[in-house]
């Protein structure tokens, strides 16, 4: 995969990494607004802070004078953070005006982003909203009374839809509407939802259902979920002898005869599994490092089991 970023994106990233003067890397001390978005588990996270020139009487006329970021993420995440700060600082805007900066503005400023990186610009817009919310709390501004509808992600409690990235139903519904997302692919590109295990794509209450709920499109084709972690347990072996009796007898013989002998030499033996009449044993302790031990032991254990439990018993050294 070659880097398919715009020159602007690459330039902003390199300026930031090299700490070029004028870049917005860093953190405002005692910030008037602080917002975070993302988490290290999701692969990127942004801590966005700003300072305002405080208006003596009307906080709504505060003007953002300084914006800074700290970003954990890929090339485009860092460039998008830089773009966000530049967009805000250059406008001499109030925090409420700053909210008009959308992820589209960030994408345009970066002269485009690859589809799968759109979430980097969404992260910028989300951290900004959270920081403005934080400023409003500091300055006693009642956003709700002003009709400003920002809900920082952490207040959007609700049913978890995408478990991999910790995204809730209210958050995803809001993003689907705000960004006009029409398909699972678009939703994944913008928010990462469903981008990892994909289990939530078509399950009840999953991404397709949320899209249908907003846009009223017909139901999608359900696909069977695949979970590589779900163990597929082997069927119980069908031995003539009761498997339980066989296992108990094997244990008894090993415990009373073979293991004491090994333990005398600083070794030991462990039963890993029993399938039908086959017993899998592992050597432990001093015996495990002896090259010849495993086959010798196999014969010893096998003979004991054949004589004392079942003549068809087999042993496999693990």
């Amino acid at each position: 995969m070659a880097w398919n970023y715009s020159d602007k994106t690459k330039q902003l990233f390199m300026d930031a990494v090299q700490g070029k003067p004028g870049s917005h890397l860093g953190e405002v001390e005692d910030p008037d607004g602080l917002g975070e978005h993302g988490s290290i588990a999701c692969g990127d996270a942004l801590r966005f802070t700003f300072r305002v020139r405080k208006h003596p009487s009307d906080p709504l006329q505060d003007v953002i004078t300084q914006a800074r970021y700290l970003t954990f993420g890929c090339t485009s995440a860092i460039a998008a953070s830089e773009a966000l700060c530049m967009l805000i600082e250059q406008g001499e805007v109030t925090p409420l005006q700053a909210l008009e900066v959308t992820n589209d503005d960030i994408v345009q400023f970066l002269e485009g982003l690859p589809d799968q990186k759109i979430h980097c610009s969404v992260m910028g817009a989300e951290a900004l909203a959270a920081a403005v919310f934080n400023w409003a709390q500091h300055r006693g501004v009642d956003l709700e009374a002003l009709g400003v509808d920002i809900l920082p992600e952490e207040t959007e409690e609700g049913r978890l839809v995408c478990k991999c990235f910790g995204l809730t139903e209210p958050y995803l519904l809001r993003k689907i509407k705000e960004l006009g997302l029409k398909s699972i692919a678009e939703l994944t590109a913008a928010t990462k939802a469903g981008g990892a295990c994909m289990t939530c794509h078509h399950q009840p209450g999953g991404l397709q259902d949320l899209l249908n709920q907003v846009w009223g499109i017909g139901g999608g084709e359900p696909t069977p979920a695949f979970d590589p972690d779900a163990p597929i347990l082997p069927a119980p072996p069908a031995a003539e002898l009761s498997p339980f009796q066989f296992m108990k007898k094997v244990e008894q013989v090993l415990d009373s005869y073979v293991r004491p002998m090994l333990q005398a030499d600083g070794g030991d033996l462990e039963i890993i599994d029993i399938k039908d009449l086959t017993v899998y044993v592992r050597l432990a302790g001093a015996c495990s490092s002896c090259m010849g031990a495993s086959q010798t032991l196999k014969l010893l254990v096998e003979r004991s089991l054949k004589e004392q439990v079942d003549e068809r018993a087999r042993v496999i050294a693990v």
Partner: protein
Amino acid sequence: MKHVYADNNATTAVAPEVVEAMLPYLTTAFHNPSSMYELARGPSDAIAAARRVIGEMLGGVLEQELIFTSCGTESNNAALRGAARANPGRRHIITTAVEHPAVLEVCKAMVREGFEVDFVPVDTQGRIDLGAYVRALRPGSTLIVSVMHANNETGVVFPVAELARIAKETDPAILVHTDATQTVGKLPIDLNAAYQHVDLLSFSGHKLHAPKGVGVLFQRRGSRVSPYMIGGHQERGLRAGTENVAGIVALGKACELAVAAYADEARVQGLRDRLERELLAAIPYTHVNGAEAERLPNTLNVAFHFVEGESILFELDRLGICASSGSACTSGSLEPSHVLMAMKVPHTAAHGSIRLSLSRYTTVEDVDHVVAVLPDIIARLRRISPYWDAAANGPRADGPEIHG
């Protein structure tokens, strides 16, 4: 600018001797080896000679046990699909959670087709869980065990000879396949001694200084595996299609060179160990993935905590160093490497893991160049990271939430 190629687990430079050996088969000796005239004998004999060299390298396997394919992925598909087709009564497959997609995705596709697959887990060092492997074996119904010889991301080597023996002792009809793409040419493999229980083995030319477009499937005589590609009589009908003569000749030459260079692997390991030691010493909050496991001599997968792998690669690239990463941002998906996740590498480190893989062409100057530039790259990226406290030179307590 100095260039350092440290991505040899992705692909390798074609050896000059290999280029020289293959060139005549692209020019004067271009004839179809299946043709009847005298001029076709050259290409036909050259294929036979390459087969002998490769057969010797693998412990004297029979010439008819080697099937030339187009790549490792094709060999893996042929092994798994061919095994399933020839044994319709068996529907259970065992593989690991950390296979290359060329096996993992085939297995997932087979799950959708009704096969049952056990993905055996690994421990935090990337070693296979032997107990889970044994418990997964089902005498009478397991079709095939497919376990990679060494992992491409971490270089961790699996005890394939041992796993194969256990499978065969459980039920001789269980087929054993190994994807040895990362080990052929690096580790000696004797298919008639230690690896006698392996029925199928895949590898690819371009990982050992042959060109892309040629691979091998070893298929032990008598194994119940059906042909995958049907057409002409080439490869005794097991893999139809006019032979890639130049590629096959190149692979033969590359194998000859690899065997001659086995002794050089100790030098490569020396370079890898130097790289590892110097990076760990120079950069705090760094660890090696799979450090306690047996690893390939050329591979270093190193995690720089609190930074993101793609950014590291971008900076390395700018400074002329080619490496790769298991980070989410480089994979096309949004999830960090399935290998590191299976090893339960914490997210703080998984995203900042990069792989440096060397070859016999790597020099000590190459290694020292990487050691010279990486600490600064990491320091600068950490200065940007919200999880890092530059003043304390350590992680900050009040960084954004780390969930997952």
